[in-house]
């Protein structure tokens, strides 16, 4: 038996052992995806470095591990989630806490806000709003070649459901806090479905945290539908400990004239792999995909972005930055696909990275597949050190070297942060990034959960 199938075997077994309980708790529609999904997973397995899009990321160290539990919720588990309050005092949001991928039962599983907006548990929404789920669930998670997406579809039980009907807009952002907490090494999955109908607007903040020091592996899938003329902003802040592995797959499907921004701020985490798929499905849709990561020790952060220009006259912009210290490693893979009839496409991509040591390493790779001729496209990538001339300039004004270094790194990072669409969060993240750069943000869950 070779290594790959051995690792994958564990998850196939997990499926076999738990599918009864999982299916029992889900609706027939959600269950109808499972069999085909596990078959595909069994075929594809856990991605290895032999796969082009996972070339720079070795998942083995986290996947070759005997996770003690595959979490099935019990009310007692939710006490922490219930106690949780976001400490970002000036951040006024509709808060949702997911505990190990599950929506706590405590406060009612679905909330209806003004204007017909619904937020709550996906599992519950599948029962209560089957027509909405059937219209959107599983439609956008489209990358057939990544076994982990199928693994999620096969075994997932719950996650967050957000529905913003035509013309509506929640008064404040929705904040999803993903907590993982267990006294055993745990493998978690969850699934979010966000529907923003035509002329609707919505901002969603996702915070990823670990609360206990155990080894965690999380495999999360989010599907987003942004209807005609809609506006959607997604901000993900990741702050997990070094013993945690987080894999996210986010699929954003955009119709005509819609505007979407996605921002991923990775402050901390052992192994992080974010896959962000943008599909510009209707004319004049616009998307911006931002990312910033700060890595040290032996952390590894990999961002995979794919922008699919499926319609004419759409615009896209990718900006990803990384700061790598110690022996940390990182990767960026930015794909731009322009379909044959997607004339008038404008697509930009920029990836800049700073290596603070000789041992840190960054791999960056653009991937352009352009089949239309009226296309404006640019891409650029840099991997380098901090600018010594700038450092000297600052020192020559009396700023000591350590402080000057910090200011330069912060300035570098701020180019991403300044794009965040939620102002209160922008200031907060500026502060967190500064703390992180000073080396003060190294504990798990020190971010929005405990730091103030």
């Amino acid at each position, binding site marked *: 038996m070779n290594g790959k199938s051995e690792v994958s075997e564990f998850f196939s077994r997990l499926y076999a052992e738990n599918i009864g309980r999982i299916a029992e708790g889900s609706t027939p529609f959600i269950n109808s995806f499972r069999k085909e999904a596990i078959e595909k997973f069994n075929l594809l397995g856990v991605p290895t470095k032999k796969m082009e899009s996972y070339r720079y990321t070795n998942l083995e160290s986290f996947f070759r591990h005997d996770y003690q539990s595959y979490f099935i919720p019990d009310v007692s588990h939710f006490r922490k989630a219930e106690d949780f309050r976001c400490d970002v005092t000036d951040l006024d949001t509709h808060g949702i806490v997911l505990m190990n991928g599950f929506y706590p039962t405590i406060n009612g599983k679905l909330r209806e806000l003004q204007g017909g907006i619904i937020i709550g548990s996906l599992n519950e929404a599948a029962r209560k709003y089957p027509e909405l789920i059937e219209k959107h669930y599983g439609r956008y998670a489209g990358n057939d070649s990544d076994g982990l997406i199928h693994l999620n579809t096969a075994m997932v039980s719950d996650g967050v459901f957000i529905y913003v009907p035509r013309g509506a807009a929640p008064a404040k952002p929705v904040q999803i806090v993903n907590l993982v907490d267990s006294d055993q090494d745990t493998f978690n999955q969850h699934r979010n479905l966000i529907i923003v109908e035509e002329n609707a607007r919505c901002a969603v903040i996702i915070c990823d945290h670990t609360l206990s020091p155990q080894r965690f592996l999380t495999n999360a899938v989010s599907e987003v539908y942004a209807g005609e003329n809609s506006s959607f902003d997604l901000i993900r802040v990741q702050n997990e400990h070094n013993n945690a592995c987080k894999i996210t797959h986010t699929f954003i499907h955009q119709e005509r004239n819609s505007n979407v921004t996605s921002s991923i701020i990775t402050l901390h985490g052992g192994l992080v792999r974010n896959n962000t798929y943008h599909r510009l499905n209707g004319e004049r849709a616009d998307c911006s995909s931002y990312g910033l990561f700060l890595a040290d020790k032996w952390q590894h952060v990999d961002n995979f972005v794919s922008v699919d220009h499926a319609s004419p006259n759409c615009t896209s912009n990718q900006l990803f930055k990384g700061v790598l210290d110690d022996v940390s490693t990182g990767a960026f893979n930015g794909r731009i696909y322009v379909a044959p009839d997607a004339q008038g496409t404008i697509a930009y991509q920029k990836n800049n990275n700073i290596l603070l040591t000789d041992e840190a390493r960054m791999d960056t790779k653009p991937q352009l597949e352009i089949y239309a001729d009226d296309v404006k496209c640019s891409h650029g990538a840099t991997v380098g050190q901090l600018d010594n001339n*700038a450092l000297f300039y600052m020192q020559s004004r009396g700023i*000591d070297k350590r402080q000057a270094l910090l200011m330069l790194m912060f*300035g570098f990072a701020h180019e991403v942060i300044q794009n965040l669409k939620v102002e209160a969060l922008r200031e907060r993240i500026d502060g967190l990034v500064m703390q992180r750069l000073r080396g003060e943000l190294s504990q798990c869950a020190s971010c929005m959960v405990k730091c103030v």
Partner: protein
Amino acid sequence: MLSIKNLEAGINGKMILKGISLEVKAGEIHAIMGPNGSGKSTLAAVLAGRDTVEIRGGSVTYMGNDLLQMAPEDRSKEGIFLGFQYPIEIPGVSMVNFMKTAVNEHRKHKGLPQLSASDFLKLMREKKEMVEIDSKLANRSVNEGFSGGEKKKNEIFQMAMLEPKLAILDETDSGLDIDALRIVANGVNRLRRPDNSSIVITHYQRLLDYIVPDVVHVLYDGRIVKTAGKELALELEEKGYDWIRKEVDNQN
């Protein structure tokens, strides 16, 4: 105030300063002129503490201390200011943050309390007016996208904020229009005090009409080959450097 003795320095193994001696006393203004590539900026870089320049010999004493042993930031806090020939762009670092940090570092060094945000902005406004710098520039990243002239004015603005004891201005006049030249010169003159000194590196007599030097030096091929009063600048303006070259060649 500043005493340079037999200074020898190089970059990447190439000798550039080949034995420079220079005395600057409190209250004096020295002009340094000389053809392109003669080592003027290299000398300025040594004084400011740039570590890419290798010191091969000689000594530099500033206010009684061994300047070459001091970190660049300490030199600044002790009153040395270098106006860069080519000011550096620093994307992502705002002028306000940059200057606030610098000013407060200087204050800390002097045992003064940090400036409050409003006091700092007041100080900044005052100095901006003095150098007639566009208010908007102060809200941008340091030098990013500034025009050549704006960058030079920004150097004088920073100098006004930090009030140095010894200002070294490396071609701050190059690339300035007539009005800007006057503003820059006024900025320098206003900071002039009996205990402050300046070293003004320039190619043009024009600036020296505004900032009248006590001494003019000609730096040629890493050496100071001529030192005289302000009339030397006029002579150079008229005759160029050829006669100096010949003089030097004849001596060798």
